[in-house]
């Protein structure tokens, strides 16, 4: 008996050491996570022979502080939103990344110039441009919503709405729906009147809202008919519509563009390999490959020309990108500085508004 115990203990110990991963990447899961596995992780694993584990989170920024402060960091690379990258970097929770280590574009343009403006910060390297849009299920909506105002118009388009349970994006969309021009939105939100106006607009649909938290929820809510329209990350809707033949339509009016960036938590167990991974994943070809799996725009200019067809081999990706000319008409670029500053305050008010 005792012998068996010793044997099994030894076996477990051996198994544990064999199963140890070389690199742990935390991302958003769903169709987006899958695109990263296909475009980044698989070729990187092939190239280096390392084992990469993908971990999902509703928002990978949230576990970083807890892990770093507790001195028990298990993530090597995390994929976070812009304002979170800034905030975490300011708080000293991220490793700084030397941007000169990033590979140049194939034509020799240095990385610093090849990335679109704002895509590189002290601690983070952008990989995609994504956008919060609203989409609807064509079988459940009569007529054709075309503007952000239609999303808030319960009379013309009756039915429930899906919104992300956070102040970010909702306040901007409310103001755009209320007739504010995209370029004035953040100036207005700096003022109390602007915030009041946004909440007043949200009040008009509050009782018809189903709140979602994970990016995979909106396509589900739309498919179930639980909501007729929902805000969503554009790539998730694209994959459900094109990849799974769901009758979803995206409305680009009032879209809010944002970056997703790779960061390395301070004290990451494999920081060197993490840096290697980030350099690899954000090179020109890999970013273009990623667009083959989901409709998020690559953060490098040089990748744009390489973006081709969706994995089904027939759908041209370019018109589905947030950055496509036709989709930019009334687009808003997320103001990360605004949200890094106001996140706590506005979410506090948002929570109070929700609970009342």
């Amino acid at each position, binding site marked *: 008996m005792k012998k068996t115990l010793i044997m099994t203990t030894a076996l477990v110990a051996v198994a544990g050491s064999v199963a140890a991963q070389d690199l742990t990447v935390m991302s958003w899961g769903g169709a987006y996570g899958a695109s990263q596995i296909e475009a980044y992780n698989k070729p990187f694993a092939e190239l280096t022979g390392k084992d990469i584990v993908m971990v999902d989170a509703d928002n990978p920024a949230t576990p970083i502080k807890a892990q*770093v402060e507790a001195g028990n960091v298990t993530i090597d690379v995390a994929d976070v939103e812009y304002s979170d990258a800034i*905030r975490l970097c*300011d708080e000293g929770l991220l490793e700084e990344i030397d941007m000169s280590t990033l590979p140049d574009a194939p034509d020799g343009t240095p990385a610093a110039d090849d990335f679109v403006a704002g895509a590189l910060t002290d601690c983070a390297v952008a990989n995609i441009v994504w956008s919060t849009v609203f989409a609807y299920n064509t079988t459940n909506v009569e007529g054709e919503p075309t503007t952000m105002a239609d999303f808030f118009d319960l009379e013309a388009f009756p039915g429930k709405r899906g919104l992300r349970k956070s102040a970010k994006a909702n306040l901007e969309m409310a103001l755009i729906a209320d007739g504010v021009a995209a370029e004035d939105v953040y100036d207005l939100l700096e003022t109390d009147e602007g915030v009041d106006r946004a909440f007043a607009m949200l009040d008009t649909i509050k009782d018809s809202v189903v709140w979602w938290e994970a990016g995979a929820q909106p396509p589900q809510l739309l498919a179930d008919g639980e909501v007729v329209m929902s805000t969503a990350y554009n790539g998730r809707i694209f994959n459900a519509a094109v990849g799974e033949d769901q009758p979803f339509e995206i409305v680009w009016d009032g879209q809010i563009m944002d970056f997703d960036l790779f960061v390395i938590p*301070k*004290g990451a167990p494999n920081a060197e390999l993490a840096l290697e991974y980030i350099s690899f994943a954000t090179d020109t070809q890999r970013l273009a490959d990623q667009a083959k799996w989901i409709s998020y725009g690559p953060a490098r200019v040089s990748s744009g020309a390489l973006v081709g067809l969706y994995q089904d081999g027939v759908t041209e990706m370019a018109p589905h990108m947030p950055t496509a000319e036709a989709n930019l008409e009334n687009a808003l670029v997320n103001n990360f500085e605004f949200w890094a500053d106001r996140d*706590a*305050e*506005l979410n*506090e008010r948002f929570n109070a508004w929700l*609970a009342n």
Partner: protein
Amino acid sequence: MADTTSSDIPTDSGTLQTADGRPLKAALATAQRSARNRAFYLVLPLLLFVVVTFIFPIGQMLMRSVSDPRFIEHVDLGTGEVTPIMVGLRTWFDENPAGTEPDEAAYAALVADLVHLREIRAQGNAGTRINYVYPGARSMFTGGARRAGRLEPPFKDAILDMDEDWADPALWQTMRSSSGRYTADFYLAAIDRERDAQGNIQKVDEERAIYLLLFERTLILSVVITLLTLILGFPVAFLLATLPLRYSNVLMILVLLPFWTSLLVRTTSWIVLLQTQGVVNDIAVSVGLITDESRLQMIYNQTGTVIAMTHILLPFMILPLYSVMRPINPSYVRAARSLGATSWTAFRRIYLPLTIPGIAAGSLLVFILAVGYYITPALVGGSRGQLISNLIAFHMQNSLNWSLAAALAGLLLGGILILYWLYDRLVGIDNLKLG
């Protein structure tokens, strides 16, 4: 000398002694002490476990709720080195009472401190600490630190040129109250209070007040859920205790099966059942109870929270009730009936009082679990079915304001301890029987 002789020779004083001449009392005490020590060593692992996993973290949490020293010192997460920051400004605060108009000396100190923050890259942390109370401060600190090195005297004008919000008395009050190592501000925030520019405590704006409302809601919903589990669980426990064994075993499995199922599975099952396009609504529509347009909203609101939590917590009520009912001798009730009591009187005067320890244990268990419940309200609570624990989680994970989360948790803990004390006074903790 007198002592030596007295211990060598038995005396007539009447104290009993052991064979080796020691007083019996002392010998017994020694023996008992070593037995106590042995027992203590046996308990020691558990004691250490409780200290390490329970008392220490709770202590740390309570510590955090009164202290967030990121404005007075900077900890380098890489090396663990602690550097005092904002020294100049804090000295100025010490020398000048609250409400003093910041003068040139104050601004000069501020500039010097900002330069220092930039040197050790602490501007983000210091700014974030102020940002919790004064929104916008984070970028004022990061932007200010970036440019502070190039500022020329007079510093007041130079800083106000950069951003005139630096003159805001509310900001100065916030920096002053953040300069102490200990502060009650997080507890104030947790009961919807804040300090005005003069440092007086006032209520926060109506539209930002949330915590008292949620504490109250948590309390009310927990009581409702406890009562519902009692009403639903009592007959089930009674059946379990009184049915013949082969039926009660089947029933017991029905009670326990959901208990063994993952919490998430049970919660999401309720979503499938209760959503507007869900099973319950579909059936109601198909049998003509309601029309397709008037489908009921049973989830993503308080109803959803109450239904799902009642179901999930039900076994915690049934099992203690069952363990108390099982040994109750049925002849007591029969005796009451034969003495002329109606069945209701027999139940009320005989059976019910005997089950009080079970009711007490089940209610306490369910109530305390319900007060801290987090995942179910997060999934099915929608906007108005959220509980205080959801806000604690929000501050732990999203806003990263751990001190406020700790203050909220501290209040919750304090509230539960008070309720527990009241319970002890009213029902008596000796009456509690868990099994």
